[in-house]
């Protein structure tokens, strides 16, 4: 892969709490390429989520740099709101806006942030909603939806901003088991359509099947990374073997 294919370049990323006594991230170096479906795995508390949240600066790193499409976002000189439009994010607990209908949830950001025309934003939202099979719930409120439906809406909400990258922070961890499939299905379609994705997940099946790169993190560091085949079938480090023995 050539270097101009790199979308996000992370160098020496650190996040310390309590003046360095707690190191959630302890020097992360990684390149995320266009079209990558990168799956981040690791035990809880290993810094996966912190890493993901650093990518759109929901978490302010203590040190290191993140370069997104040639912009160094960690220097504090960029328009953060503008930059975040390019990065969709999906959360473990959906975080839909409970006081707005599904359609309003989808169109609020395009309308007030991108100043899109209301009718155009709604038309686009309905098309995307139809893709995840929820067009008939447009006028419902989030509380009336099941967990799986909420997460599908949350994915569509991020898509409505036309992002270059989608970040998934344990998107299926808060779901009942029978609803995990429908969400993963939507993510799979998204990956097939060529979206660049970074997913923190415990779904090893998804990592193996959909991911083209798997990153294993522990104690704020990247311990091992490679293709799903390499990570799952030929793990090198003991810590990864240990982890896989527990989860598979």
């Amino acid at each position, binding site marked *: 892969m050539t270097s101009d294919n790199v979308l996000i370049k992370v160098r020496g990323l650190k996040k310390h709490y309590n003046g360095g006594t707690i190191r959630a991230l302890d020097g992360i170096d990684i390149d995320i390429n266009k079209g990558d479906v990168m799956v981040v795995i690791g035990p809880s508390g290993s810094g996966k989520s912190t890493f993901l949240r650093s990518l759109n600066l*929901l978490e302010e790193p203590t040190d290191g740099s993140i370069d997104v499409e040639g912009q160094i976002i960690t220097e504090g000189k960029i328009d953060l709101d503008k930059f975040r439009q390019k990065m969709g*994010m999906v959360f473990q*607990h959906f*975080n*839909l806006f409970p006081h707005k209908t599904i359609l309003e949830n989808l169109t609020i*950001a395009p309308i007030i*942030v991108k100043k899109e025309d209301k009718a155009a934003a709604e038309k686009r939202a309905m098309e995307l909603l139809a893709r995840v099979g929820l067009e008939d719930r447009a006028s419902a409120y989030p509380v009336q939806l099941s967990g799986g439906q909420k997460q599908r809406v949350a994915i569509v909400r*991020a898509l409505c*901003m036309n992002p270059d990258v989608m970040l998934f922070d344990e998107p299926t961890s808060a779901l009942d088991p029978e609803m995990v499939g429908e969400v993963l299905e939507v993510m799979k379609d998204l990956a097939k359509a060529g979206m660049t994705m970074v997913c923190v997940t415990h779904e090893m099946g998804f990592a193996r099947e959909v991911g083209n790169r798997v990153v294993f993190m522990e104690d704020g560091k990247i311990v091992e990374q490679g293709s799903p085949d390499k990570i799952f079938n030929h793990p090198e480090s003991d810590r990864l073997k240990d982890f896989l023995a527990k989860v598979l």
Partner: protein
Amino acid sequence: MSISFSNLEKVLTYLPMLLQGLEVTVLLSLMTVLFGFVIAFTLALMLLSDVRPFRRLAKVRNGSPARLKRLEFISRFNPLRLIAGIYVQFVRCTPMLVQIFLIYYIVFGFIQLPKFTFFGFIQFERFFPGIVALSLNSGGYMSDVIRGGIEGVDQGQTEAARSLGMSKGQTMFHIIIPQAVKNILPAVANEFVTIIKESSVCYTIGVQDIMFNVKSIQSASFIIAEPLLMATFLYFCLCFPTSKIIQYFERRMRASDQR
């Protein structure tokens, strides 16, 4: 001292005065809730603000741990929050009566207010300082309620909005405040009841509210107890239905939460 029906009858002839007082009390309370809310909201935003002029100091890496800790402490300094914090503590830790005198005799001792009456009998130069003092007081108390209501909205809501590219202001206005209102409204309504009662201290600076007229009736008729009882009755009639109405709406709101 005795309470007698003949006294009560005599006092009843002064009823129009008490009703005028009632009018003033209601007007005073309504205006106070309104201005108090504006003040409280401003204070709450100040308390929640993230203005840190020395935030860069937290990025300093070299130096002893003690020095780094000190710099980190300074980096967290927020002048807006400090001012609002001092203000709220001042309001809470001084008596309402003292505050009203401070406003009337000192602040409006320097600032000359135009002297005129409105609604036929309300003296502006006394009524206005009364509203100012009550609003400043209730604003201080309510600011904490509003801050709590805003902080009570799930952090994930802010994260979701910001990750969609909304600015801090847009997030506050479109996402947080509409949800916070639900948390805040009952407390603000209760504050209204409190203000109705608190407003009675305004008679000390000559605002013609219920208590002021009680004093007038007492000195005109030399009857002490009965005017007080009537005032008690009036205050109760104002506050009791108000708090019942609030309870009703509170219950309805809670019901709509469990849709």
